[in-house]
């Protein structure tokens, strides 16, 4: 479980969700780029989130498929939970679905979603929203190629007994080669784990509302593979048509629209052959949907064999990905600049300029940051080195113009005199020493602030200011079956290990694998020898 964050450098935030952040980083030991998903600190106390994170790591590690992201490592460094994954350079299909057919050809890529997520302005070269009516987009052949892989990977996890439970365009990513990757298995479950409770956990539906099948919205039965067929078909329909059917609408509207069903025949821009393939899977009645993905897969494969323009399609996809990457780099430039990391911003800007040398905004920014860096270098303290430069040049060529010993003596004397006078000038002006004094003040201030902050308890509520200080004791709970969990004062601890607690009475709870409490007890912990609590003896007692 231990995780060495020291092995990773050049961290850059790729995106952020409610519970986790995704970073791009370099793994130093293997000199490769990786994606690191880090659970937010605020989610760590939420056992469901931690469990979900662990589940995602284990599921990903147990599956091997070219369209599933490879998990390299999982663990915690004591503060955060991490999931180290293969880094995929690509674009999520959500963007294609949002902008549809105009996505590539118009040259207008809307990246405001990403930038808003990072709280940063959009990349100037990509600005504006695409005009959905402006014409050609990703070629149908490429869409079919992507769709086939999407169906294949969903079919693969279903065959392994797993439901993804959050299929949406944003969870599919296409890389430069047109390879699809299915992301975010955090919500996925093995069918044997029971879906109904998970779907309506705490009364709240899990997943993305716009892609939840009607029967689940109505609360009819558990999530099943046919339910997920509906979500997949809806995602595919959005990829082909470039429209978002339920996005941007209120929850009530979405529920009402989903339950009334999609009139697939009225949808423009989707080949009739594709409509015919998807239509059965979008039936609001799950009993009337096909029982496997085979007809869909077979149909897509048949269409693909008739297509010729895959190579051109890949170029179009590459163009989309490059634009996305530029937008991301631009966001990183702004982020580095706003936090005062000018050199870092400059380095990223250089990278950006290499891929987009004609962009006037990038050029202007490059010049602006370059000037700021030059100013910084020119104004850096250099008084100590300056006085020696000129004399060194004068005496630095022995044996040429200064062969005469007397001349050499004169030159050296002049140099010494020059150094003495310029040195005393700077000494009297006081700048180098003065820098030291400013530094001394700064260091003393930081030391004082550090001392003041040792307690750092300014906002502690009044009840915590004068609590009694109790000695600590150790609780060991034995006889716990595997998969059972121990909670003390509602905080989860590893079963079988030492639990350090204040010497006092504490609430102990043991839960079974289904998180149902099987024992609740009050345990007194002493300050001396460890208190051993044998669960096997007490189980069943009230």
């Amino acid at each position, binding site marked *: 479980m231990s995780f060495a964050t020291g092995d990773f450098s050049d961290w850059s935030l790729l995106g952020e969700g409610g519970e986790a952040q995704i970073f791009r980083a370099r793994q130093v030991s293997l000199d490769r780029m990786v994606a690191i998903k880090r659970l937010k600190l605020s989610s760590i106390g939420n056992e469901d989130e931690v469990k979900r994170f662990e589940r995602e790591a284990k599921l990903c590690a147990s599956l091997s498929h070219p369209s599933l992201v490879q998990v390299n490592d999982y663990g915690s460094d004591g*503060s955060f939970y991490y999931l180290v994954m293969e880094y995929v350079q690509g674009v999520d299909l959500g963007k294609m679905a949002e902008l549809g057919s105009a996505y590539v050809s118009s040259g207008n890529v809307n990246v405001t979603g990403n930038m808003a997520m990072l709280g940063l302005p959009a990349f100037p070269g990509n600005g504006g929203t695409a005009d959905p009516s402006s014409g050609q987009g990703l070629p149908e052949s490429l869409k079919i190629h992507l769709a086939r892989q999407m169906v294949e990977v969903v079919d693969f996890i279903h065959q392994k007994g797993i439901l993804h439970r959050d299929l949406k365009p944003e969870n599919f990513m296409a890389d430069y080669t047109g390879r699809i990757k299915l992301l975010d298995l955090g919500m996925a479950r093995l069918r044997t784990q029971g879906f109904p409770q998970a779907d309506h956990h705490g009364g709240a539906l899990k997943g993305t509302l716009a892609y939840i099948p009607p029967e689940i919205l109505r609360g009819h039965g558990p999530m099943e593979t046919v339910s997920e067929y509906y979500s997949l078909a809806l995602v595919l329909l959005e990829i082909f048509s470039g429209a978002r059917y339920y996005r941007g609408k209120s929850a009530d509207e979405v529920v009402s629209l989903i339950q009334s069903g999609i009139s697939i025949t009225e949808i423009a821009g989707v080949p009739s052959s594709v409509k015919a393939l998807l239509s059965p899977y979008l039936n609001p009645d799950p009993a009337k949907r096909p029982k496997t993905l085979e007809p869909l897969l077979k149909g897509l494969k048949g269409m693909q064999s008739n297509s010729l323009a895959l190579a051109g399609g890949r170029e179009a996809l590459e163009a989309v990905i490059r634009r996305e990457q530029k937008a991301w780099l631009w966001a990183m430039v702004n982020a580095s600049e706003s936090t005062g990391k000018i050199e870092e911003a400059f380095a990223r800007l250089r990278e950006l300029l290499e891929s987009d040398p004609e962009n006037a905004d990038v050029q202007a920014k490059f010049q602006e940051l370059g000037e700021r860096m030059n100013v910084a270098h020119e104004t850096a303290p250099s008084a100590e080195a300056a006085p020696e430069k000129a004399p060194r040049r004068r005496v630095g060529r022995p044996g040429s113009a200064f062969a005469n010993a007397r001349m050499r003596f004169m030159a050296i004397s002049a140099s010494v005199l020059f150094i003495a006078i310029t040195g005393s000038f700077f000494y009297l002006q006081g700048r180098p020493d003065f820098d030291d004094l400013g530094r001394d003040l700064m260091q003393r201030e930081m030391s004082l602030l550090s001392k003041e902050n040792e307690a750092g308890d300014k906002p502690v509520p009044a009840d915590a200011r004068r609590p009694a200080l109790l000695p600590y004791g150790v609780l060991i709970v034995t006889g716990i079956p595997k998969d059972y969990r121990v909670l003390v004062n509602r905080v989860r601890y590893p079963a079988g290990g030492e639990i350090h607690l204040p010497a006092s009475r504490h609430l102990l709870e043991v839960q079974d694998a289904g998180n149902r409490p099987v024992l609740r007890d009050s345990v007194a912990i002493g300050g001396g020898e460890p208190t051993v609590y044998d669960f096997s003896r007490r189980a069943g007692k009230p």
Partner: protein
Amino acid sequence: MGMNSASFLKCAPAFAALTLLCACGGDLKRARESYRLGDYPRALRLFESELDRHPGSFEARYGYAVVLQELSLKKKALGDDEEEDWAEVVRSYEICSRLGGDSGTIAENYAISLFHLANKLYLREKYEPSLEYLETARRIDPKNKYVLNLAGIVQYSLGRYQEAQETFEYLIAEDPGFVSAYLNLGNVLWESGSEDAALVTWKQALTVSPDNQAIIKRIESALQKIAGS
């Protein structure tokens, strides 16, 4: 030989000019010496005198601001410092920063003086202006964790729990050894009703600083409260 002597003599006016310049820097020298000896009132007068002659002198401006900061720090040690003291220090650094010079430490000292001013305002429950100064300080010296920590505390005091939580989370991510941030993040989570998350956060603080009494007391108090509810 003759030629070389002539060249040498040609340099004489330059040396003379340098010597003259040395003489002009007298007030700065005396100010610096006074500062080194801890005679801050005299140092302040001498820097002022230098500024009367050369209002654009970065060294004199910076020296003036540093001495003002020392005087305010002395007052602070006695509990006598006022909001106006720190406001004056901040003003001096602000003017100094406009001159475009670079002492190598001006950003750090400027940000610290803003921190002190913001802290005074925070203690007087003037949260909004306090946060504004802290935001300025953060722009000037993004690495100052005390500025961020106080910003989180002020956000907390303004009831902006979400912002405060994000500030403390950022601080911990930047410096996992900064115990105050864990304590304060735990407090924010506790106040927001995320009791389990608060306890986990404080326990993480104990892995960083196992004997920290403030953290230990906070955990004990929280557990007692949970046990009693």
